[in-house]
């Protein structure tokens, strides 16, 4: 049984089948949509026609017999009794469980979740609603200056909106890009007419039924028609509360993606994949960390699916598969106007960034270092050059993660 019908759930089902598991497979998802690709929702798709068809993952023949329980939210689980409880109160038994429940967006205040004109962006339905509001001339305030906030700002500007980004850091995307590249990307946003209020927070959202504006920490006010909240995410682990798991900052797993009990022993039949998992990575000194990059659900799902299939088959190769080093290389990308960012590694771990190629006002490649060790590479354009550093930033035991990655 897989709980979560997005990228991680889909890739786990595929990996189970590819690794020879032919038994029953149920996937529960609280959205009504079959698995789809989320990154375009803040980029191309938000700028055009938003539809599930535009972003749906192709279904492979191997998973044609998977039972998709879409629109069925799993509310709780009892790992000792091997049973989950769905929103309608029914109990469903499982032989093995994979948690792939991902993230949900944080909101500024509880009431903005139901306030007209206030949006968070995670699902295709969110994107459709936001797209309808991004009309030419609309005054848009984006709170949050990470990748999502900046992508939405770029798309809204392209659609003819008046856009202001409010961010708590000194520069947008400062942690993942470093100061030099972040300042340049900010400059390119400003050149296209986006206003920034950095080092600032929102203390009040104004408006009764519909959003009318926000008040900032310095007392200034920004009237707006559309408020986009891109202030980070919460991991969906509440359905496992009451069980013997470590769910702080994500479900802690061993390197086989099996969920750990509080005492550090693994649940043999409970796995976690994707954004909800906090797993040890050989590149980063085996320190368990959740890495919210798009390629991680696929990597962790393949690992979990293969190991679970071997385990269910009683295959003697299981021990070898578990002992194999697990070292997925984080990768992220972002498109903002014609600024096409691509990165490998975890630049946010670095204490120093260095221009390696190109020039910062054009296409360029930055390296990110802890001492002399390169822990990340990020470029605007120059894809071959960026890729050339992939091996360098992904050496085993390269650097330990001191704190959970961004």
């Amino acid at each position: 049984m897989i709980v979560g019908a997005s990228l991680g759930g889909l890739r786990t089902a595929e990996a189970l089948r590819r690794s020879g598991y032919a038994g029953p497979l149920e996937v529960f998802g609280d959205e009504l949509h079959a698995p789809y690709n989320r990154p375009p929702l803040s980029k191309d798709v938000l700028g055009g026609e938003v539809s599930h068809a535009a972003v749906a993952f192709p279904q492979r023949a191997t998973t044609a017999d998977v039972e998709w329980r879409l629109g069925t939210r799993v509310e709780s689980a009892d790992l000792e009794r091997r049973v989950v409880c769905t929103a309608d109160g029914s109990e469903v038994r499982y032989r093995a469980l994979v948690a792939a429940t991902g993230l949900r967006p944080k909101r500024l205040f509880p009431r903005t979740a139901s306030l007209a004109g206030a949006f968070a962006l995670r699902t295709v339905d969110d994107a459709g609603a936001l797209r309808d509001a991004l009309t030419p001339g609309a005054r848009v305030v984006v709170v949050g200056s990470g990748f999502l906030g900046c992508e939405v700002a770029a798309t809204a500007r392209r659609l003819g909106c008046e856009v202001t980004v409010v961010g708590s850091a000194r520069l947008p995307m400062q942690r993942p890009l470093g100061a030099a590249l972040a300042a340049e990307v900010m400059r390119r946003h400003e050149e296209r007419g986006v206003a920034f209020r950095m080092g600032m927070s929102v203390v009040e959202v104004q408006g009764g039924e519909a959003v009318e504006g926000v008040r900032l920490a310095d007392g200034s006010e920004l009237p707006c028609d559309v408020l986009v909240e891109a202030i980070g995410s919460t991991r969906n682990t509440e359905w496992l509360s009451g069980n013997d798991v470590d769910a702080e900052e994500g479900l802690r797993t061993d390197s086989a993606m099996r969920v750990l009990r509080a005492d550090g022993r693994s649940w043999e039949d409970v796995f976690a994949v994707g954004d909800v998992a906090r797993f040890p990575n050989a590149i980063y000194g085996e320190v368990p960390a959740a890495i919210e990059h798009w390629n991680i659900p696929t990597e962790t799902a393949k690992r979990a699916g293969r190991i679970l299939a071997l385990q269910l088959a009683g295959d003697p190769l299981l021990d070898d598969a578990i002992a194999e080093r697990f070292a997925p290389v984080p990768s992220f990308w972002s498109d903002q106007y014609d600024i096409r960012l691509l990165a490998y590694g975890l630049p946010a771990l670095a204490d120093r960034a260095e221009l390696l190629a190109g020039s910062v006002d054009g296409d360029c490649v930055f390296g990110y270092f802890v001492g002399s060790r390169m822990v990340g590479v990020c470029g605007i354009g120059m894809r071959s050059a960026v890729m050339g550093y992939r091996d360098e930033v992904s050496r085993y035991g390269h650097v330990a993660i001191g704190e959970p990655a961004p």
Partner: protein
Amino acid sequence: MVNVDVDRTQCQNFGQCVVEAPKVFRLNARDEMEYTPVVDDSELENVEAAIDVCPMQAISLLAGR
């Protein structure tokens, strides 16, 4: 043989496919993705991995004979 297809209206030359299946996909001197449309069966697993990691989900397998 494995028949590979790339939707050129989707591909944005991320090069993630090159990491997974370097014998099938490559970036040329202008950083544009080029690929070999018909490859040996031994590349199937790598092409499947490339399909998985393509950010634009632009790669597919065509039914072969």
